């Protein structure tokens, strides 16, 4: 059937013409940028608060938030999207400032004992729940016990493990009353730990340590976290949950600092598809995106310079070696050769393109004052590294006559594939290594990693839950369940043991630095880059700061009003990012708006959520991977076209969502 064969070709050709046309029309879009409404300058009053005169009339923020949370029960919820919402709904004993620093929350102050094992918390005395009932230390004791109770089956409860007896309580070996928490009086409580844990105060600011209202939980059972039922103690209360669409919060008038909260409403919009999320932002339906697709970075940089926000994040992307099998078992020279032969600048500048920092060690920069270890070759030029790599490669017994064949395994994702391809071609070029790329569905991949039988080089990555380098080092300890490398070094383990008991901060950091040095000297991983957070933010939205945790509480946010001239122009039909009319009121942009996509995005699949990003932080929620596996079903190809053409999506239809 020759005709049948021709049809798809004709179609592809036809759509290519269409797409090309679209790209061409997009060229003049850059000039439209000046017509977007600009915010007025921020003016602070004498208290350091924004002057009411510069604030927009309607204080509502629409935050793109990735996947829909599986629940809003703070003790059972998992994943980044749920945590963002829960930090707005609840407040722990400690909380976070806009820059991510831990500050007093429900507790006014605390004492830490000399052995750094006992924390005494003094609660504020004027605390109330959103329903007006008083909140005291008893509520926190109840809540922490609930989170550790095996019946709650909290997957986030590992954050509680530093607490004395937590492991035994979780295992059901001790009753919850034995958990290292005691009530001293109505407003004072004490938490005892198994050992010094410098990041413990930041753990208390995480959802699993948030208080829940006992009467509320007992009345509604597992439905207490639904709109209409949920009683909370944070800056906002749950107003509405439109399944698979959005979650809406309203200002909590009973919050202890309610007078300081400017934002009236926060709408978390579920955005599973990155291409769709960008469309919504450009239509003015979102003030804040969860992420942006990698392949549109340059276009966004050019056209949305004020909106695009990129900042360091506490995650590392690297590859791991399987040290238990050939060819890497007992072959440090070969391992180091492969580490050296990668040009990380090319990967970050040409492949990932998102301002990621090239990395030569495990721990990313910016974590709680820790300065990561830098190996001697970090300062070399790539030629020097390649030279050394060739020398080591030969030393390991490989040459042109005896070439190395190696397999790179990764979980299916656009980004992983691009990086693996780049690494493979660098190895080929520098060392003549032939690599096979193997892409696997996420859970299959994890299982293969864990079994350490068929893996050779595999994608790894880590995004920390808490602001401490220990989180990165821990998984290389002998016997750690995530030690998929099969790494075993007694001196490394001994250093980590010391870290666990050291209470002097400087000495502890020194020990971690030393452990990282040992790890890198053993060439266990191939560092590639440190993660960044990347999103589009409405320039009218202020009060938030980039931070390495990527935690942004809506209570600090506020919206500026637009400059009048720009607003007048906006009324004439520019795309709405206008705080005064608000996203909901956005009107259809003019007809020429549609073609606005960079030609450069054509044909590139947008669903580039990095496997590591989502999964590491998501626990069981493989939703983030949802983007990844879909590629296999062919959906990705579809959205690829969608992303290219429909990235614009600026039709009237999107309005009013």
């Amino acid at each position: 059937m020759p005709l049948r064969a021709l049809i798809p070709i004709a179609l592809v050709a036809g759509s290519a013409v269409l797409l090309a046309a679209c790209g061409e029309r997009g060229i003049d879009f850059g000039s439209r940028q000046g017509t977007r409404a600009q915010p007025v300058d921020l003016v602070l009053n004498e208290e350091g608060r924004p002057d009411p005169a510069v604030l927009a009339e309607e204080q509502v923020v629409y935050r793109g938030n990735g996947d829909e949370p599986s629940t809003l029960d703070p003790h059972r919820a998992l994943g980044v999207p749920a945590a963002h919402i829960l930090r707005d709904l609840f407040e722990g004993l400690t909380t976070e400032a806009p820059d991510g620093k831990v500050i007093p929350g429900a507790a006014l102050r605390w004492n830490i004992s000399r052995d750094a094992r006992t924390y005494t918390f003094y609660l504020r005395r004027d605390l109330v729940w959103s329903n007006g009932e008083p909140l005291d230390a008893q509520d926190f004791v109840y809540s922490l016990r609930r989170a550790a109770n095996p019946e709650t089956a909290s997957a986030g409860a590992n954050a509680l493990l530093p607490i004395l007896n937590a492991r035994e309580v979780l295992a059901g070996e001790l009753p919850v009353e034995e958990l290292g928490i005691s009530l001293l009086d109505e407003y004072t409580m004490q938490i005892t730990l198994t050992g010094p844990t410098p990041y413990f105060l930041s753990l208390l600011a995480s959802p699993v340590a948030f208080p829940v209202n006992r009467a509320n939980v007992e009345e509604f059972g597992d439905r207490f976290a639904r709109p209409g039922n949920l009683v909370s103690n944070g800056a906002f209360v749950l107003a509405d949950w439109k399944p698979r669409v959005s979650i809406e919060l309203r200002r909590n008038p009973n919050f202890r600092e309610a007078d300081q909260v400017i934002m009236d409403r926060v709408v978390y919009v579920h955005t599973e598809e990155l291409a769709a999320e960008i469309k919504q932002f450009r239509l003015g339906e979102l003030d804040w995106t969860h992420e942006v697709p990698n392949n549109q970075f340059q276009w966004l940089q050019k056209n949305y310079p004020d909106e695009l926000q990129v900042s360091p994040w506490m995650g590392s992307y690297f590859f791991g070696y399987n040290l238990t099998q050939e060819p890497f078992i007992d072959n440090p020279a070969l391992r180091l050769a492969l580490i050296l032969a990668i040009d990380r600048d090319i990967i970050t500048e040409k492949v990932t393109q998102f301002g990621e920092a090239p990395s030569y060690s495990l721990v990313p920069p910016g974590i709680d004052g820790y300065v990561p270890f830098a190996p001697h070759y970090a300062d070399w030029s790539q030629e020097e590294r390649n030279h050394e790599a060739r020398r080591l490669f030969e030393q390991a017994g490989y040459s042109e006559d005896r070439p190395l064949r190696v397999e790179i395994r990764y979980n299916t994702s656009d980004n992983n594939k691009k990086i693996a391809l780049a690494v493979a071609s660098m190895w080929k070029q520098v060392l003549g290594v032939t690599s096979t790329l193997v892409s696997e569905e996420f859970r299959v991949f994890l299982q293969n990693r864990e079994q350490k039988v068929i893996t050779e080089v595999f994608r790894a990555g880590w995004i920390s839950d808490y602001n401490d380098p220990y989180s990165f080092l821990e998984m290389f300890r002998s016997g750690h369940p995530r030690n998929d490398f099969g790494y075993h070094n007694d001196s490394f383990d001994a250093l980590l043991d010391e870290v666990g008991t050291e209470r002097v901060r400087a000495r502890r950091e020194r020990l971690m630095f030393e452990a990282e040095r040992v790890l890198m000297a053993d060439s266990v991983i191939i560092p590639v880059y440190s993660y960044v957070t990347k999103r589009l933010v409405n320039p009218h939205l202020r009060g938030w700061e980039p931070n390495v945790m990527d935690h942004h509480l809506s209570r600090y946010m506020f919206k500026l009003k637009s400059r009048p001239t720009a607003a007048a122009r906006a009324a004439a039909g520019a795309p709405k990012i206008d705080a005064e009319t608000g996203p909901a009121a956005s009107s259809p942009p003019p007809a020429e708006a549609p073609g606005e996509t960079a030609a450069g995005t054509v044909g590139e699949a947008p669903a580039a959520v990095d496997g590591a990003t989502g999964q590491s932080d998501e626990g069981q929620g493989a939703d983030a991977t949802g983007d990844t596996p879909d590629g296999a079903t062919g959906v990705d190809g579809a959205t690829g076209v969608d992303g290219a053409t429909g990235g614009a999506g600026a039709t009237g239809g999107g309005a009013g969502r």
Partner: protein
Amino acid sequence: MRQEGILRHATNRILGLVPTMLVLITIAFFLIRVAPGGPFDSEKILPPEILANLEMQYHLDEPLLQQYFRYLGQIVTGDFGPSFHYLDQSVNELIARGFPVSATIGGLAMLLAFFAGILIGVIAALRQNSAVDYSVMGVAMLGISVPNFVIAPLLILGLAIYGGWLPAGGWDWSGQRMVLPVVTLALPVIAYIARLTRGSMIEVLHSNYIRTARAKGLPERVVLLRHALKPALLPVISYMGPATAALITGSVVVERIYNIPGLGSFFVQGAMNRDYTLVMGIVVFYGLVIILLNFVVDLLYAWLNPRIRYDEAP
């Protein structure tokens, strides 16, 4: 007599449903558990104590056979159990939420496809081997061979982005948001129905009784609509059973591209998350819908074709 036959047939079908569903449930139950990885696997491995608590809550710590019989017992009462991923929601709730959306879009698509497909097919059959026939069938061929993940973005591009007449995606139960997904889903079905109709219509038009009807001087309209079309629809009807089932249970591709909260994307997400109960629930639900629709097709058959009788004992 005939009524009774149909009734007996219905009873047989409903009884036959039990073993079919049992086989379906059994295969699906063990297949999903064979898939590597479990619902609580992630890069951050849970401490064994916590994993044990989770497994206990979902009875994953029991022997597999015991889990299987527990599940069967649950299903009999119509309870699909709690979702492993959507923590405080039951699978029943999730299906109740996604199915109406998928069913609305799929049902409308089927309606559109039914009428448009038959119309096109009849026109092509009447003008057999003419330019009209070839062009209509050529377009139909296109409709069948071009996958919907190509059609959907092209429709968005043409009608939403350049035209600006329709929204590019999203869902709020409004008519204008349904147009594009419905058309996308309907196009290949229209094409298929048109081809089926054309084929059987040509065959019927050449049969003796049509010649007789024409010889008796019946008006062409009556010959076509009453005598030819009804039997010509038989293959269309038998195709429509499974096709309707496929449409109303949701298409992952269409739901993703148009950002529609239907059942199809739940199914794929569920499989990726190893959300055993959600996947099982949707499989069982799909199975029921397909069996039910096949039964409806049988009834329609009997009505359309007097040669098929259910009163003749099997």
